[in-house]
């Protein structure tokens, strides 16, 4: 943790009618880093993402992005600050082509009254073409996003998140529904993002997590259980008992 904290969760609690999905969680994400969040089902991984991007409002605590409190901002304003999230089930825009999906994501000027003009489209298109190569969908450029395979949709959505050029990318189960080959291709794509972006990945699959080579955070019952390298986590007996042991 040599670099300055870009995102900080400070004692965040999310209470769903008495059920604490997130319980007094504090976490720091430095810029340009790779963080992998693991934990059993119901550990609060997705809720943590929801809290960061403003889909869920914390009951207590603060979410700080470059020192600014963002936990009360509207979702699209949080994206404007530089945080973008990929959802667990791919949410690509099925009625548009792959390149249009990326171009919409890459538009810097997102004010609605500018959408009648062509201002900024060239820049967005150039960015979209670059990301298209990066996520390996060049040969599907003009296909309708709704006609992509499940794996391709996942890559497209990763591409859309990348195209926004957000500083922090949250990738919620980017390999859901993928085979081993597709998973390692996804890991390769994600590794190229680190540095320019800070990446936070949620996943269950330990093989995939090991390919990411990131800082690992273990959540359990909404709270931070351990953090460290994957090897440290693997050797931890408590983690093994609640999570890895069960997974094996």
């Amino acid at each position: 943790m040599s670099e300055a904290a870009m995102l900080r969760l400070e004692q965040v609690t999310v209470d769903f009618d008495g059920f604490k999905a997130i319980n007094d969680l504090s976490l720091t994400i430095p810029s340009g880093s790779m963080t992998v969040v693991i934990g059993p089902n119901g550990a609060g991984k997705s809720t943590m993402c929801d809290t960061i991007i403003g889909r869920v409002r914390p009951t207590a605590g603060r979410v700080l992005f470059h020192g600014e409190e963002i936990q009360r901002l509207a979702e699209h304003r949080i994206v404007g600050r530089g945080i973008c999230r990929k959802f667990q089930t791919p949410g690509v825009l099925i009625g548009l082509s792959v390149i249009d999906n990326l171009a919409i994501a890459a538009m810097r000027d997102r004010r609605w009254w500018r959408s009648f003009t062509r201002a900024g489209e060239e820049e967005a298109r150039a960015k979209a073409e670059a990301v298209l190569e990066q996520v390996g969908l060049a040969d599907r450029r003009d296909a309708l996003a709704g006609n992509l395979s499940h794996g391709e949709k996942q890559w497209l959505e990763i591409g859309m998140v990348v195209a926004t050029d957000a500083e922090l990318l949250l990738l919620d189960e980017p390999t859901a529904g993928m085979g081993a080959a597709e998973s390692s291709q996804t890991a390769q794509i994600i590794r190229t993002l680190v540095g320019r972006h800070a990446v936070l990945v949620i996943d269950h699959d330990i093989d995939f997590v090991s390919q990411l080579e990131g800082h690992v955070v273990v959540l359990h019952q909404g709270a931070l259980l351990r953090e460290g390298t994957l090897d440290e986590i693997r050797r931890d007996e408590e983690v093994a008992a609640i999570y890895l042991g069960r997974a094996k």
Partner: protein
Amino acid sequence: MLNLPFKTIGGGAALLLAILAPWLLSAYDLNLLGRFLALSLSAMGLVLLWGEGGILSLGQGVFFGLGGYLLAMHLKLDGLGAGELPDFMTWSGVTALPWWWAPFRNPLVTILGVLLVPAAIGAGFSWLMFRRRIGGVYFALITQALALVFATLLISQQGTTGGFNGLTDYHNLMGLNLNDEGVTRGIYWLTLALVATAYFALRWLLSSRFGKLLRASRDGSNRLRFLGYDPTPYKVVAFSVAAVLTGVSGAMFTLHAGVVSPALVGVVPSIEMVIWVAIGGRTYLVGGIVGALLVNFAKDKISTALPELWLYALGLLFILAVTAFPRGIVGEFEGERRFKPARLGDMFARWRAGRATS
């Protein structure tokens, strides 16, 4: 598959025929064509709103009525002296012209009113709805309730709205006799010009980035939001543009039909608009025009011959459109998926299988 030259030629030929229609059709049929072309403006509004924006409104009759009534108010006042009242007001014992009638003595105010009143109400209403993320079935039901309220209000205010009978019996527009053949032709061409203008304007709108974002908000409001866009204004603009088109549609229809009444603005006519668009092809502007023309000509022919049959025929058409050709008539001729009669056979087989298991 239709290729571009064929479409251009076909479209050009249809436009040419429409321009020449006053010399090709009887006065009666020309009047019908004019009315139905006016209705197709409403239908194109729904293509934008429902087909492209995914927002189903069952209350477009409200805006149709606003346009129609505002114009009819002007027509009723046209030619009256300073102290004179429209005939139906006198019959209802109204002694002074209501303040909200007075501005519509002016033709320019009337034209602005036909455009701006639906725009303002459409924008205000839809902003309140979409900002609170009300959509889908809830939105459809609220718009339907709005149509019901509007029709009920019109009926209850006999003295100032003409009540159940609406506003009718007017003959002059800016010094022109509405029964004159030249004037009716002029109104027909004006309608045609408005339809063409609306068509090209909407085509431009849908091909702009706005159009893509509107489609995106239909397919994934949340995804759009989490890409940093606020989907609300796109939906509000679509709703307002559709409201204006529907208002103009109502005004032009009133000119052709010589009457506007609550029967044209309530729940049933609002739903009929949706059916035209579903049958014509809801994601195609041409589908809106085709649907409005075909369904209404069919309505005229069938309800003249067998009045009691029309509602069943309309229901059947709607069911067919939804189940057998969900992309509408125009959609069936577009792209690879042509109309396959076999699919009707499939439907029948499924229906029988369903009966066997239940």
